[in-house]
């Protein structure tokens, strides 16, 4: 292949690298009103009154909007296809405030100074309510977080809102209790993953203005332009045809921008005033008033016979969706299905879950989307199982994992076409030097190096729901325009989709022009999330190009000749990864660093090996942050305690050792050029692989993230028996 499977530079690389004005805030109109939001200082309260008299006296103030000024139509901000599985539990501004940070008033003025001053002069009186802060106590708490009569769910999600239960459900295949009775070894543990912030470098931002026809134009840093159009129409109570959404270059998303965050505030101001308006979240707001990864507590029961055959797996997840249900009912499913499916030799599996509301910031989408949490739990349990069986953990996996050709009950009954996971494990084993390094090596009287491993899978798009289209058109002079609705957020999808088009049409890359998304001009796409773009939008591009080729063969080539195609996949072929960590631990302080992380990935055919490699390296390092430092937590009153990069530490280049990535590429027959997805699977292995290495170093199992130096030290101190025995070696 000439362009596919080549490490071609991104088509927008040089404009990004020379700092061209291509992002949302760079393009905003100069005369935009500055929009800011007054946020609740209380975790749970009902607004008695908001007095704007003093605030509106400030010169330059254009308007201040409160719950009295918004349409009374509940909606969800989750960027999902209609009908969304997430409950309609929000208003743009609600009289009830449900977390510290919930918006209470939208202020717009001609300068930031005026707006800041006005925000301080808005007087709010409240009826304080008793907040629910602990997910373990949320169910049937005497405080009901969503008592409103117009709360709405689109389908059966196991919702009992009066019990603070956002969603619940169960799945089983085989008789787990019967299988457990045959097991000679059973691990039964609870694993706890915390909320994390996506921490993309470009915070949430958008601006809006009325166009020549009086329609509302929203320009936003988003992964979901078409969902923004639909959701904004619902929230603002105007027809969808009255809204146009433009997505410029996006400074990172990782799922944070799969939910509406900033869009509705300036949009409402523009609607009310007829003027351009802009809102740029600061970093603190991005931490405290957006969406995070769902905190989950996952009980895993896993049992095997003496020979190490895993017979039964039981997982029970409690997920904390926070004050609103964005992505709550869906992320939780992945915590079970995308973990258990790895061990398809098990005779019986069972998965139960509950998703609860609490008075903390709403959770949402973050790379991995529940699979990350489930993988930490199950892979940690498998490592514990290998310990009980005194069996090499890699051997245990090779004995039990799914294979090509398997039909996997836990994976919605799908048949797996392409699974080179054994090869991924073998290659990673060699790369990390497993046989020399497992379980640990003492490198000084107080320092230990140890290795750990984990495997993971994800999906490639949401079957039958994600829908993508592409249009390719011959232009004068013999080049092609490729119109897509998928949202490049830095991942490089504009480039890899152009590569597919160039390959299909048999032309050079410079003959393909790709535009950013504009809902008035781009063909419909559900958006860039759920690892869908390469696989789903990619197929749409290939289909459109094949159709255009047929037309060219039949009619010759001339300008305006075009072809369109739409694609939706009935299956979601999983990409796979084996991850290996080598850590160095200081036994006197607990300080633990990742010296090396090896990732071996199967994403089918890598359309662009350079970009696939960087996706993997980046995902691994985010995963290392999740494993060792990143932690959203709250004070006893429900206020988030870490709301800046000063306190919420993401890895710097000094914090990670070497990251080495290789591919074991299978060929997925249902994907474009044999491709599957890459974006999400890569974040799943670091947490369990590092937890495993920590165990191998010091004999302690840490079942709660993050595994900070402090936790390691305190655990070492408590379990005095564990580490002196290690030191004797």
């Amino acid at each position, binding site marked *: 292949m000439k362009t596919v499977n080549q490490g071609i530079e991104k088509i927008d690389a040089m404009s990004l690298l020379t700092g061209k004005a291509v992002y949302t805030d760079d393009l905003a109109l100069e005369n935009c009103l500055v929009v800011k939001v007054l946020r609740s200082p209380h975790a749970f309260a009902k607004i008695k009154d908001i007095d704007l008299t003093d605030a509106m006296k400030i010169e330059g103030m254009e308007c201040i909007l409160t719950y009295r000024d918004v349409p009374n139509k509940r909606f969800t901000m989750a960027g999902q296809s209609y009908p969304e599985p997430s409950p309609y539990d929000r208003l743009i501004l609600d009289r009830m405030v449900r977390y510290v940070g919930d918006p209470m008033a939208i202020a717009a003025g001609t300068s930031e100074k005026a707006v800041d001053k006005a925000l301080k002069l808005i007087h709010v009186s409240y009826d304080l309510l008793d907040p629910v802060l602990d997910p373990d106590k949320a169910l049937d708490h005497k405080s009901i977080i969503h008592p409103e009569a117009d709360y709405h769910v689109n389908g059966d999600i196991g919702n009992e809102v009066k019990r603070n239960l956002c969603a619940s459900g169960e799945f089983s295949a085989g008789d787990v209790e019967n299988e457990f009775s045959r097991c000679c070894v059973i691990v039964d543990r609870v694993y706890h993953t915390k909320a994390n912030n996506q921490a993309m470098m470009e915070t949430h931002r958008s601006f809006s203005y009325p166009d020549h026809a009086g329609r509302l134009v929203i320009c936003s840093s988003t992964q979901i332009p078409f969902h923004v159009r639909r959701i904004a129409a619902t929230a603002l109570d105007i027809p969808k045809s009255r809204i146009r959404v433009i997505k410029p270059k996006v*400074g990172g998303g990782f799922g944070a921008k799969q939910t509406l965050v900033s869009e509705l505030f300036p949009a409402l101001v523009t609607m009310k005033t007829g003027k351009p308006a802009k809102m740029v979240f600061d970093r603190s707001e991005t931490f405290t008033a957006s969406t995070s990864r769902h905190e989950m507590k996952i009980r895993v029961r896993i049992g095997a016979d003496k020979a190490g055959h895993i017979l039964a797996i039981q997982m029970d997840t409690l997920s904390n969706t926070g004050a609103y249900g964005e992505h709550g009912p869906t992320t939780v499913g992945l915590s079970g299905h995308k973990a258990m499916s790895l061990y398809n030799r098990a005779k019986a599996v069972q998965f139960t879950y509950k998703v609860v509301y609490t008075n903390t910031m709403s959770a949402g989408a973050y790379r991995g989307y529940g699979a990350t949490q489930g993988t930490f739990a199950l892979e940690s349990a498998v490592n514990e199982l290998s310990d009980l069986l005194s069996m090499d953990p890699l051997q245990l996996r090779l004995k039990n994992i799914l294979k090509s050709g398997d039909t996997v009950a836990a994976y919605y009954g799908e048949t797996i076409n392409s699974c080179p996971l054994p090869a991924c494990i073998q290659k990673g084993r060699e790369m990390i030097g497993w046989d020399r390094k497992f379980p640990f090596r003492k490198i000084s009287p107080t320092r230990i190096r140890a290795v750990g491993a984990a495997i993971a899978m994800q999906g490639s798009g949401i079957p039958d729901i994600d829908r993508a289209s592409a249009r390719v058109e011959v232009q004068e002079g013999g080049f092609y325009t490729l119109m897509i609705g998928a949202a490049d957020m830095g991942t490089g999808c504009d480039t890899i989709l152009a590569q597919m088009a160039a390959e299909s049409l048999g032309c050079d890359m410079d003959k393909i022009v790709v535009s950013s998304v504009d809902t008035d001009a781009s063909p419909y796409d559900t958006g860039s999330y759920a690892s869908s773009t390469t696989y789903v939008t990619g197929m749409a591009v290939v289909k459109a190009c094949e159709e255009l080729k047929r037309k060219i063969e039949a009619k010759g080539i001339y300008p305006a000749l075009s072809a369109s195609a739409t694609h939706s996949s009935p299956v979601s072929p999983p990409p796979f990864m084996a991850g290996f960590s080598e850590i160095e631990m200081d036994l006197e302080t607990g300080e633990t660093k990742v010296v090396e992380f090896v990732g071996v990935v199967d994403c089918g055919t890598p359309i662009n090996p350079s970009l696939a490699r960087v996706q993997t390296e980046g995902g691994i390092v985010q995963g290392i942050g999740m494993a060792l430092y990143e932690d959203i937590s709250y004070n006893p009153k429900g206020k988030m305690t870490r709301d800046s990069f000063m306190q919420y530490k993401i890895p710097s280049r000094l914090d990670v050792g070497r990251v080495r990535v290789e591919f074991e590429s299978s060929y997925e027959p249902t994907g474009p050029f044999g491709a599957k997805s890459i974006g999400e699977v890569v974040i799943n292995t670091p947490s369990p692989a590092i937890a495993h290495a920590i165990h191998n170093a010091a004999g302690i199992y840490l079942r709660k993230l993050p595994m900070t130096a402090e936790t390691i030290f305190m655990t070492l101190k408590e379990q005095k028996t564990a580490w002196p025995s290690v030191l004797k070696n």
Partner: protein
Amino acid sequence: MQITCRINNREFIREIEPDLLLIDFVRSLGFKSVKRGCDTSNCGLCTVWVDEKPVLSCSVLAARVNHRIVTTLEGLEEEAKAVGRFLAKEGAEQCGFCSPGLIMNILAMKKEFKTPTTDDIKQYLAGNLCRCSGYESQLRAIEKYFDLEGKNQ
């Protein structure tokens, strides 16, 4: 108050508010390469040079550049392209939002080190956060850039 300064070899005389930050000043003049990633001097995205030395423009008052020389990435187009080609080859720019600040510091490092070691590079650029790349591809690109620069000298 009024300030006079040179930005990217052009003189600017402007009336400013005393509390205006340098980042907002240069962006208002159209130098949009300068990005804000945090509000706490942690991310390095807003790096510009004042009198050839890298500073965080979010933490410097515009008033302090009175009679001084400010350089943003727009003023280093050719140098940025030279580094950028190496980053692009690795796919290291990803979303690109942290690239201008990173390149400002790579170019500043070049003035201090002829052949920086891997450790020098990591230390010098420790204040430039990136959430997309995991830093490996940046390191590969920067090492290749300095290798070539070393050979040319």
